[in-house]
């Protein structure tokens, strides 16, 4: 147990039949850190995310968040505990506006019950206003003002990525999981993403775990990097250390 760690992963493994997608990985993430997971395709990076957000059940090992064991916590509880995530291929609600998407991020903070919602009692209206205020803070942070009432289906890919980060922030997380935030983005948009990540870390004090392929972005924003291959941990350290690691170079170049 590492003292003060926000997330502590111990001997984590998941097997799908004979495939060991993640095979005995241990790491910890400190508060306020940007922790990046890199590795070739199929290394098990996204699987680690899916294990933390409890979409998959771990075969062995444990995950502790703020010292609390969440290895068997129900998936819908994860957001309420303070872990939010984005998806590699964007999982926004396409037939809804940006505002509605962000408001769904407020779901873990729902304090009203069904009957009062059906009747729309005054305290439901107050709660809705409070949700909206939080959402507006996120809109401000990510400069989404002009897209507020646009349907997701009408937005370019880059903006959708940002909206997805925004939706995750609306849950007021302490730990944010970003799955390839720069995939499919132009060079300029990728630079923007690195600014957002800095802002989220410094202004909101949110700890970030990120899966990323763009080594420029990784070196820019990460405090520590973990390299994985075939479900196993290859190297863990500063971006420079990991890039210089022989095992990592072999995994990438196949030499």
């Amino acid at each position, binding site marked *: 147990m590492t003292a003060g760690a926000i997330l502590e992963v111990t001997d984590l493994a998941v097997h799908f039949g004979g495939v060991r997608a993640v095979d005995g990985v241990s790491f910890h993430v400190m508060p306020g850190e940007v922790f990046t997971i890199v590795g070739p395709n199929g290394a098990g990076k996204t699987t680690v995310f899916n294990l933390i957000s409890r979409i998959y059940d771990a075969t062995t090992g444990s995950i502790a968040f703020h010292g609390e064991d969440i290895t068997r916590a129900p998936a819908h509880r994860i957001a309420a505990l303070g872990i939010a995530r984005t998806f590699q291929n964007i999982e926004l609600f396409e037939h809804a506006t940006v505002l*509605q998407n962000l408001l769904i991020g407020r779901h873990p903070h729902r304090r009203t019950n069904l009957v009062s919602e059906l009747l729309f009692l005054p305290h439901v209206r107050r709660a809705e206003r409070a949700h909206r205020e939080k959402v507006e803070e996120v809109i401000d942070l990510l400069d989404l003002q002009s897209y507020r009432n646009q349907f997701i289906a009408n937005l370019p890919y880059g903006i959708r990525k940002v909206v997805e980060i925004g939706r995750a922030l609306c849950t007021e997380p302490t730990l944010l999981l970003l799955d390839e935030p720069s995939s499919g983005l132009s060079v300029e948009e990728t630079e923007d993403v690195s600014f957002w990540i800095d802002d989220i870390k410094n202004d909101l004090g949110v700890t970030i775990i990120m899966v990323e392929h763009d080594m420029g972005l990784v070196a820019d924003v990460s405090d520590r990097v973990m390299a994985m291959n075939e479900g196993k941990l290859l190297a863990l350290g500063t971006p420079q250390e990991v890039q210089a690691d022989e095992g990592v170079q072999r995994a990438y170049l196949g030499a």
Partner: protein
Amino acid sequence: MRFVFKTTYDQDINLLKHEGYVRSYGILLVLALVAPLLLDEFYTGELTHIFAFAVCGLGLMIATGFTGLVSLGHAAFMGIGAYAHGYFLKLGVPWVFSVVLAVMLTASIGTLFAIPVLRMTGLYLAIATLAFAIICEEVFTGWKSVTRGTDGMFFEEIDLFGWIIEPGSLPFYYVLLILLVGTLLMTANLLRTPIGRAMIAIRDSEISAQSMGVNLARTKIIVFGISAAVTGLGGIMLAHKTTISAPDSYNILQSIALLLMIVVGGMGSIHGAVLGAAVVSVLPTIISIIKDWLPSLQDIHTLPTGVFGLVLIGFIILEPTGIYGMWRKFKLFVDVFPLYRRRTFKRQKAFLKTERMR
């Protein structure tokens, strides 16, 4: 083009978002209120029929249109509502309490049905609901001591705390109108609160709804309960309108008619349920008028079923967003003229859904 200058969050929260809404819904309400004074008895009757159907359609819309839980057996809930209401009335329960009790009973049966069944999705869920509807139809036919079997159960006047309202009378129209408007308001409230957003989230992406903290199983079960309750209320209204409740009013064809209603009206919108109800109620009348013109069609008894099917297929192929979708496109076209983009309503194929993870 209208530009709404927003100064408070309430403008987005309110149901009537700007004076345009107040005007159009105001006119609609006034029309609905004076309609029975202007129209003759037949058309007033047709309107009450639409009201009853619209509530049934709303019930299905809540499950299928908003949450994506396909049901091919919602007519069963209409039946449960109507029979329960009739039975409670026979026991001497006052009308209002009988309606409330029957709706609550339908909700509980819907919930109990949902608990095992909602682990299924898509086609499998549809088949399970179909099976449920067939079982219910058998129960309606066989449980003669309660339902009077194929003889049917008769609904006469409404006894509203001593005030006797005959079916087809003016007050009867207003009772049904009040029930419809009440259901519409509650559904609208549902959609602007967390539960409604959770429903839409489940429909569009279960996996991301879950990681936003939506309890999938619980939300689906609650939604199915609400949906059953609303459909049950619709069944009660329809039984009063037609004055009879017999098993064949709750067969597969009725369930399909409900589905037709929400597809033709427009999936995923409250307006769609009402517009669809209007189409489904009026279609048989139109068919019988056409039959008068073309006597050679007189002998084809399955004509309505065939026309229903054709209309359904036509909408699925040509206008999957339904009548309300057509209206929305037209409205947007006018609103933003000449900047309309066809893509706004284009359905996108997402090949890379993370749904693959399941």
